[in-house]
């Protein structure tokens, strides 16, 4: 039994719903008690989907338990097929129905439905949403593509894009961006699945030369099966960031036999130049904390480190299934990976890492807001704000441009930092005057910083995140000198000085100590 105040992932049947809602002509009959229909609002409210997701719930009640919930399931199947006329049916159980052991797959078989029925076994008490989505997609691909023959002549540049789903982070825009990019580079995208595909389309998957897995959490299992069953290779590099996009196109072109023709698309990359422009100097070494699904977190760390010159001070994921990949990535940045689905642990790790920027899910956005640290969202689980009206991919060169904007805008701009330090003694330019656009810093949050951070943060002007008051005592003179340090780096100066003092047994901290520490930490 696990205590949970909030969860990064829903139950596995919600993952199955995401696949059903991504596709056309597919319907999901879910054996579930009254109340489980809440999941509809994820699609109609968060994603602003204009139609109900294609799911029929049996919504059995206590009185049905005495009679036959199996009959309730059968009539729900009949009614759903008659009403919605799907081309294929998914059947399965939610957590409560799993306990009833009604066997939806077996029951559906007895109904002699004239459409293919794909039964799902999603163990609700072991697995979670992403696993459920991955398993559902795999079962569907297997059901429709298993007894298909690969054609004799397959165009070598033909490929399928696998993995984008409903409720995925910016998947809709990623598909558009990547399809365009691949098209410009001479590749022929035959099918995108599950997003927008019909069940019968899945039977055509083996007709392409190879697959592209954009979201391993959803499609890696299916791609591995297609590789085994149909000898289809797949590209697994995820094109998030400029370097990764180049590598991704390179790999796709090699598989397509197009390696000799020139690469197109790079001209739309602005991230690289923006990152070199002098204003971006201030990005150097900014401490960034990253948490999300494995794919987006690993990609974010790579961009932060190599393309923006940040310092990765924390990296983690809530997806244990991909813990190994995240651990490997964390080693590159010489940090301890955080593998947890407990947001309180994530909050503690953020406090500990004292980042200047948090990249995470909607939960890290809440945490960062409370700690008054700039933040950008990089990963599902998603919030209604993560479905922007504008085109905003994460993948490809345009995705890298969007990432530059959304990560850098919450931070103070270089020119502003420069002016702030020049005018720091100006009467109008005091510690309380934050930059006008800096939402994350202004106005001071009503909720206030978390209790454990109050002790040092309340010394006005320090960075929002501080460690619990250490035993270090500052002389009045040293405190006054510290005040002369620009407020946006003062927190760091205080921490460095206190660490230095503690390491060297210095007590109290004097002006000398302050400058000794400055020299010690000079980069």
């Amino acid at each position, binding site marked *: *039994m*696990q*205590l*949970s*105040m*909030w*969860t990064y*992932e*829903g*139950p596995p*049947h*919600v993952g199955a719903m995401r696949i059903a809602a991504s596709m056309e002509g597919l319907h999901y009959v879910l054996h579930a*008690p*009254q*109340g*489980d*229909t*809440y*999941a*509809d*609002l*994820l699609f*109609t*409210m968060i994603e*602003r*989907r*204009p*139609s*109900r997701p294609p799911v*029929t*719930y*049996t*919504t*059995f*009640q*206590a009185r*049905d*338990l005495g009679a036959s919930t199996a009959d309730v399931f059968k009539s*729900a199947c009949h*009614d759903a097929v*008659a*009403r919605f006329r799907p081309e294929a049916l998914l059947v399965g159980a*939610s*957590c*409560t129905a799993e*306990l*009833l052991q009604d066997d939806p797959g077996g029951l559906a078989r007895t109904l002699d439905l004239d459409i293919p029925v794909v039964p799902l076994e999603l*163990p*609700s*008490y*072991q697995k*979670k949403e992403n696993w459920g989505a991955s398993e559902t997609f795999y079962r569907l691909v297997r059901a429709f593509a298993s007894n298909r023959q690969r054609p004799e002549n397959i165009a070598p540049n033909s490929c399928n894009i696998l993995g984008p789903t409903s409720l995925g982070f910016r998947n809709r825009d990623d598909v558009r961006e990547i399809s365009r990019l691949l098209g410009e580079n001479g590749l022929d995208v035959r099918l995108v699945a599950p997003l927008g595909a019909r069940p019968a389309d899945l039977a055509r998957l083996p007709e392409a030369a190879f697959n592209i897995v954009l979201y391993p959490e959803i499609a890696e299992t299916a791609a591995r099966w297609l590789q085994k069953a149909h000898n289809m290779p797949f590209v697994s590099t995820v094109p998030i960031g400029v370097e990764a996009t180049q590598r991704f196109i390179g790999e796709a072109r090699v598989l397509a036999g197009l390696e000799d023709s020139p690469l197109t698309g790079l001209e739309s990359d602005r991230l690289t130049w923006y990152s070199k422009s002098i204003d971006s100097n201030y990005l150097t070494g900014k401490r960034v904390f990253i948490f999300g699904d494995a794919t987006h977190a690993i990609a974010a760390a790579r961009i932060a480190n190599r393309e923006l010159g940040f310092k990765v001070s924390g990296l983690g994921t809530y997806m244990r299934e991909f813990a190994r990949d995240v651990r490997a990535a964390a080693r590159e940045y010489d940090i301890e990976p955080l593998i947890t689905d407990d947001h*309180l642990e994530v909050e503690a790790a953020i406090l500990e890492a004292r980042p200047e920027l948090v990249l995470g899910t909607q939960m890290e956005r*809440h945490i960062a*807001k*409370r700690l008054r640290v700039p933040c950008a969202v990089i990963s599902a689980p998603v919030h209604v704000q993560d479905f922007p009206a504008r085109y905003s991919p994460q993948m490809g060169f345009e995705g890298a441009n969007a990432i530059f904007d959304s990560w850098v805008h919450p931070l103070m701009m270089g020119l502003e930092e420069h002016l702030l330090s020049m005018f720091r003694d100006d009467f109008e330019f005091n510690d309380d005057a934050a930059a006008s656009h800096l939402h994350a810093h202004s106005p001071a949050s009503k*909720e206030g910083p978390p209790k454990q951070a109050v002790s040092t943060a309340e010394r006005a002007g320090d960075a929002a995140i501080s460690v619990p008051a250490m035993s270090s005592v500052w002389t009045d003179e040293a405190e006054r000198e510290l005040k002369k340090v620009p407020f946006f780096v003062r927190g760091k100066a205080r921490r460095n000085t206190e660490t230095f003092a503690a390491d060297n047994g210095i007590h109290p901290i004097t002006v000398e100590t302050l400058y000794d520490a400055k020299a010690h930490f000079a980069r």
Partner: protein
Amino acid sequence: MNQPFRPGCDKDAPIRERGQHEVFCGLTSIIWLHRKVQDAFFLIVGSRTCAHLMQSAAGVMIFSEPRFATAIMEERDLAGLADMHDELDGVVEKLLARRPDIKMLVLVGSCPSEVIKFDLGKAAERLNRQYAPKHRVICYSGSGIETTFTQGEDNFLAALVREAPSAGTGNGGASLVIAGCLPDVVEDQFQRLFKDLGIEDIHFLPGRTSNAIPAINGSTRFILAQPFLGATAQALASRGARRINAIFPLGEEGTTAWLKAIADAFGVSDARFETVTAPARRRARAALEHYRPLLSGKRVFLFPDSQLEPSLARFLAREIGAVIVEVGSPYLHREHIAGELALLPPGAALSEGQDVDRQIDRCRVADPDLIVCGMGLANPFEAEGRLTKWSIEFAFTPIQGYEQSGDLAELFARPLVRRSALSGKTAIKEGALCS
């Protein structure tokens, strides 16, 4: 298989349906209950689905550490590899160590805990022995197989009543218990009115703290402030308390009838009642006048959600002149809503339970001007060009009493005002949207 559309269904023979119920389960009422009882913590014994439901329905409310959580059952619990009672004890220990400020821990049963017949009562008793009086432990079921949305509150209040002492410190029991969670601002308004009417020793159930449970016995009268409290009424009655019957305090008419029933039970003179309530009645009517032109003659279809639907329909029809097409309710408590049903206009169809697909068919055929429905249905209806009001707002917003009558009407008017604003037909009247 489609049931034929029957306009103007008889109130005595409502449409009864058994199909997909597009409603929340009783756990959802924790969202307002935990805000109301400020020292209580609600621990759902359930699954990841329960946890996901709560955060999805509560939306942004999660960003501070909330006073509710889920003890998620795992494979090893179900396979008998771990003793569930021991596991729960461990979770509770961890929780109370983290939140020593909690005075009342409420264990809440869910669909999976009910299906495996996990004995929550036994667990609550054991934990109460261990932690009371510092932390009292009680339990109730909010499972979807037994409760719909607001019925979770009903079960919680019934559990509180079972806990209540039967004799108070002074002259026995409370003289008046007002059952049903009301926003603080509404309680304060009623409290002032009762004071002016000379009625004393009033207890709201639930109180704002967990120790505010009144003594209940044969000298107690009670009145329901919400229409979904069948189990609570039964629990109160079983302690000897007598129910004051009235329609519910929505709108000027509902509030007056509700207060008058109380005033009559306590022997308040008509003259005094008139003097005390007149100013607020006048204000309520004036506020409603703003919205009457917007809603008068508009055809409204209400999907089942909170059991407030018959009262809302009565308010819409009688106080702002709307035409009621269909009133759906997850459950009709014949006795408690008899007064409401009697006031519903002829021609309004009444439905109990739900087959959501058929109800959507009926709604499309009826083509109403406004659809009151849940969040799962609202955007799809809007995408069809229909106007909707999400019903969950009636559970989360202060709508009871005189001073909120205008706000209640405004909730219905807002989508209509917005539609005309967007199509540029009518300029938004200054202040029309302020609540």
